[in-house]
């Protein structure tokens, strides 16, 4: 994604390292870097999270905010009459990398937005979208998932899904009271009222079933996960595989135009995806509960970006 010109010697060094299973920073092909996770740092949002993937406090940095909005239903929206919807938007900040300046990041924004939509907006996400319907054919919740890519140090996609997952898990919706009131003709009409009480909020239904994404980057004849910036510059193709907690593959997207995957490699990727994902679910659970206990401690003072920068 980030354009980095490497010399043929570096290119060869990285490729051969990956093929022999020993990467430039000593990791094996399926080893991932450290992740730092914080939630609830945007007090105005219904849910938010910041996720950084990288060692020693430098790495790919993603901020996600979720805003819920009540929308009147109309047939032209394309939303089913008895369900709500999730609208994703990814924005690569020009401060993350030079090539995002101006219109440079647009293509990537579209690609990543589409990917998030593919993973989260639908039954495959595990979230019960029907619970986001307030009154069928009248009103429903829209969850706006706004993602800001703050820094890029290789492997945006996995961090993106981590952060979005954490933000959706921390999302709290206001309770809605639905009443039937007869109108002047005596016909019963459903009406709703959003309860404006910060204490009276509910979690989304089904967040524990959300998938996690593992992106494989093909380098030479092998593949790696969680690449460094240099490895990403060397890779010819990438494949994102989203795996649900039940170990079902629920979304896939290929990126990178230099090459395709051979069926044998693809089969191996899908196998590895499940192994990696089961470890990632465990890691996510631990980091999320850690992030949650930290937010509970600092309830009076929502944690800001600056506290995020001190883990070393």
């Amino acid at each position, binding site marked *: 994604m980030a354009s980095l010109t490497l010399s*043929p010697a570096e290119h060869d*060094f990285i490729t051969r390292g990956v093929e022999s299973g020993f990467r430039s920073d000593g990791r094996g092909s399926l080893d991932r870097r450290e992740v730092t996770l914080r939630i609830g740092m945007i007090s105005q949002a219904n849910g938010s999270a910041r996720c950084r993937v990288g060692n020693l406090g430098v790495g790919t940095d993603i901020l996600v905010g979720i805003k819920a909005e009540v929308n009147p239903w109309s047939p032209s929206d394309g939303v089913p009459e008895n369900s709500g919807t999730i609208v994703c938007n990814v924005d690569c900040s020009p401060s993350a990398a030079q090539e995002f300046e101006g219109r440079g990041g647009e293509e990537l924004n579209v690609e990543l937005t589409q990917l998030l939509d593919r993973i989260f907006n639908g039954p495959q996400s595990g979230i019960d979208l029907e619970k986001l319907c307030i009154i069928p054919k009248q009103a429903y919740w829209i969850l706006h998932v706004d993602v800001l890519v703050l820094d890029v140090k290789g492997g945006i996609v996995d961090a993106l899904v981590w952060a979005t997952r954490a933000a959706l898990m921390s999302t709290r919706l206001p309770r809605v009271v639905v009443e039937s009131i007869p109108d002047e003709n005596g016909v019963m009409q459903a009406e709703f009222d959003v309860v404006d009480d910060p204490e009276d909020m509910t979690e989304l239904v089904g967040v524990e079933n959300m998938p996690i994404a593992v992106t494989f980057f093909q380098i030479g004849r092998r593949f790696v996960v969680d690449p460094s910036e240099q490895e990403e510059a060397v890779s010819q193709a990438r494949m994102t595989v989203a795996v649900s907690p039940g170990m079902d593959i629920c979304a896939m997207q290929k990126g990178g135009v230099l090459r395709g995957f051979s069926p044998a490699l693809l089969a191996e990727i899908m196998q590895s995806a499940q192994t990696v994902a089961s470890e990632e679910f465990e890691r996510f659970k631990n980091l999320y509960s850690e992030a949650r206990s930290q937010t509970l401690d600092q309830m009076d003072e929502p944690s800001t970006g600056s506290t995020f920068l001190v*883990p070393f």
Partner: protein
Amino acid sequence: MQADNDFATDAELSSRIVTPGSAITSDPMYMRGHGTFTENDTIYSSVSGVVERINKLVSVRSLKQRYSGEVGDIVVGRITEVGSKRWRVDVNSRQDGVLMLSSINLPGGILRRKSESDELQMRTFFAEGDLVFAEVQLNTPAGLSLHTRSIQYGKLRNGQLVTVFPQLVPRSRNHFHSLPCGVDVVIGVNGYIWVSKQVPASKVEENAELIYSDKNDSISDHEREAIARVANCISLLNRLYVKITDASIMYAYEESLHHLVKDLLTKRVAVDLAHSVKSRLAQQS
């Protein structure tokens, strides 16, 4: 601490940490140096860093800065553009450096004027993306002018690049080190550090034909591990904001031997390692 405007003693003038806009002194005896500006006869800092005073000259050395070249510096640069009779080189500075066709050695070390046919095959010497090991020949307002007219300079291969803060690399007599752990490092003063497989000095001279080669030698897993370990140690030293020399790299390397290479940069190991490296550096000085 006295008020910012009337600052008197020398002790306070040096080794004080300032941020952009901090008043340093209004005493008319001082002259303003790098990293400062004057307004209403008061000297202010224009960067965040440490105040330094040499006789009457007051300057601020910033904590983070781009590389500013000096003649004779050994640098590692990346070719960004091939032009007519010259290459543009990224040297982590404010401007790109320039490497003239006339300032390189021809393969085999033949000494002659560069002809038009050399000009046409410039990409066979250096192409975009290549890393070069060079020396600063001239420092002009238009940027640095580099040269590679020595057998040890030229194209870099068999390894990987680590980028550090340029101010952490002190200028020294030697910037090419064959470390005892079997790894060669080129510590560019500009903060680009090349970590590569060790090539015996005798072989360098007999391989004069190979100075423009793109092909890596075969690198064993053992050598690869040593390279990765040194590279990770350098990243750690950079994060600790410690001067990067062959000695500090070796300390970090020796302390790191208890750990797996891939764990060196994880929080758990890095904090531990940071303590032992720092205490060892303190012992030495």
